[in-house]
């Protein structure tokens, strides 16, 4: 569904393009949950932005459901992929239900009026994320964890085959991290979506995801969690002086 070939990502600075990373090829299939992992500053956010079409790749091709991303209009894109962001600068005055409802805008008429179909979609999204009891609360009055679920519900309401999430589990406690990840897993398996999320919680990702897209200084590679462990990729992920990866427990530990 999402196909990437010879992708070079980066951004365009004043003195020419600044190259961050390259990914030879990968494709993401419906029903799969994929984690995007890599150290800070390696270009995870840039990759997500490139995949969402808000910045252009430096080189390479990117297709979604057979359509070339750069040739899609913003409106077409809005029906193919939805975003979940950690920092969204949204209005604190919005009610939870309004926030989720705005996910239906790509389907609404010129003033944004909602049809019955939209309303049932919104209700489903609220139910799936367990937000019914919070629907009339203002976004400024709920906790970070709840807001994270609201953001996911909004993407659900947008009803796109592809969902990209930028660090959806940061700022959450372990319980809520697990909750969000289970929700993402359900989205992938039950709703047959492509779900790609960037994360620093590698250990949790190893437990739940189907694929891991590992980004290192050289390139990005898509593999299964087991492959990742067996081929000892995680040993080289961070400099060796402070942490090491234990393949038996599948956990990182600190060196003495």
């Amino acid at each position, binding site marked *: 569904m999402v196909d990437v070939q010879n992708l070079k990502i980066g951004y365009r600075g004043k003195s020419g393009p600044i190259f961050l990373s390259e990914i030879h090829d990968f494709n993401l299939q419906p029903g799969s949950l994929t984690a995007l992992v890599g150290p800070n500053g390696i270009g995870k956010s840039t990759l997500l932005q490139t995949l969402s079409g808000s910045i252009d790749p430096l080189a390479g091709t990117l297709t979604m459901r057979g359509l070339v991303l750069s040739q899609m*209009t913003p409106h077409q894109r809005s029906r193919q992929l939805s*975003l979940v962001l950690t920092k969204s600068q949204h*209005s604190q*005055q919005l009610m939870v239900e309004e926030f989720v409802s705005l996910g239906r805008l*790509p389907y609404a008429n010129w003033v944004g009026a909602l049809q019955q179909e939209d309303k049932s979609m919104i209700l489903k999204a609220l139910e799936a994320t367990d937000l019914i009891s919070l629907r009339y609360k203002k976004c400024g009055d709920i906790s970070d964890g709840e807001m994270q679920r609201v953001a996911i519900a909004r993407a659900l309401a947008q009803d796109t085959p592809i969902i990209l999430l930028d660090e959806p589990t940061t700022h959450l406690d372990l319980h809520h991290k697990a909750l969000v990840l289970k929700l993402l897993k359900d989205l992938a398996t039950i709703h047959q979506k492509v779900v790609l999320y960037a994360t620093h919680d590698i250990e949790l990702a190893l437990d739940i995801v189907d694929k891991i897209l590992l980004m290192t200084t050289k390139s990005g590679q898509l593999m299964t969690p087991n492959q990742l462990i067996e081929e000892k990729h995680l040993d080289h992920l961070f400099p060796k002086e402070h942490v090491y990866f234990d393949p038996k427990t599948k956990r990182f530990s600190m060196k003495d």
Partner: protein
Amino acid sequence: MLQGLKYKFILLPFLVLPLVMVLSLSLGSVYIPFGSVIKILLGLGTDDLTWSYIIHDYRLPKTITSILAGGGLAISGLLMQTLFRNPLAGPYVLGISSGASLGVAIVVLGSSAIGGVFGQALSTPWGLVIASGLGSFSVLLAVVSASLKIKDTMTLLIIGLMFGSLSGALVGVLSYFSSAEKLQQFVFWSFGSLGSLSWSSVALLSICSVLGLTIAVGSIKSMNALLLGPNYAESMGVSLKKTTFKLVLATSILAGSITAFTGPIAFVGLAVPHIVRQLNRTADHRIMLPTVFLWGSIILLCCDAIAQVPFHSTTLPINAITSLVGAPVVIWLLWRKKNIMF
């Protein structure tokens, strides 16, 4: 999405506006009995031709000006607050009033320097309107062209503020070098006035208002998307550049034309959207746009009624009254809510 409870606050301004309109038409430095006001308005004739003249050629244009100016300024405030995601933004953050002031200052304070017939012609009332219009328009043109290049709204906000202080400084320099008489004329303009418009000016103001409001109505969907923040808005097919341009353009047309005709009127643009947001309990622009317009009209009509000093021949400067009435209201709102949320 809407519970029954919310509707009453949405319908309220539709009921209040006609009442305030009639009140505004009945008040003025000449006392006209309420019954006669209604009769004249309905075209039933009256015994006193002076009354009919006052109503038709003085109070009616003034009431319509107040409705357009109050509503228009409030709408431009709403557009700016949505665009900049900042409850403190108003039509004047983009330097509109400073631009207008600069235009008027050049004409009024500089006309002695130009001198002769040309200088005389410029300081007529129409000269003032044109000068303030040109002043606000050129500042806004600068901001609009900046908005085409700059994506970040915070940067744009600061550029608007800088243009504002730049023209403010130029006004200061001009004031320093001008005569006391000229300075007085300038100060009177800066008090603001709703009552000096002829029917032809009202017609021109109406055309500008309709134009600005049409752009605003056409941007409802994009503005609702912007409530989610710029990144989400973009991911939902909204072009940030186009939307920024449209919103700045609508604000320029509305606030620019209003300031040109009435002089600077403070507070309405900043505070009305904020008050209405609390009242409506929603930020949805489909509801905000009509209610903000109506409440803006109502509040300016009320301020004007106060400025008239009922049953007295004095008229206070409208620019001072709007702040005098409005600022405590906003302080009270914030006091109660403890925080300001956008």
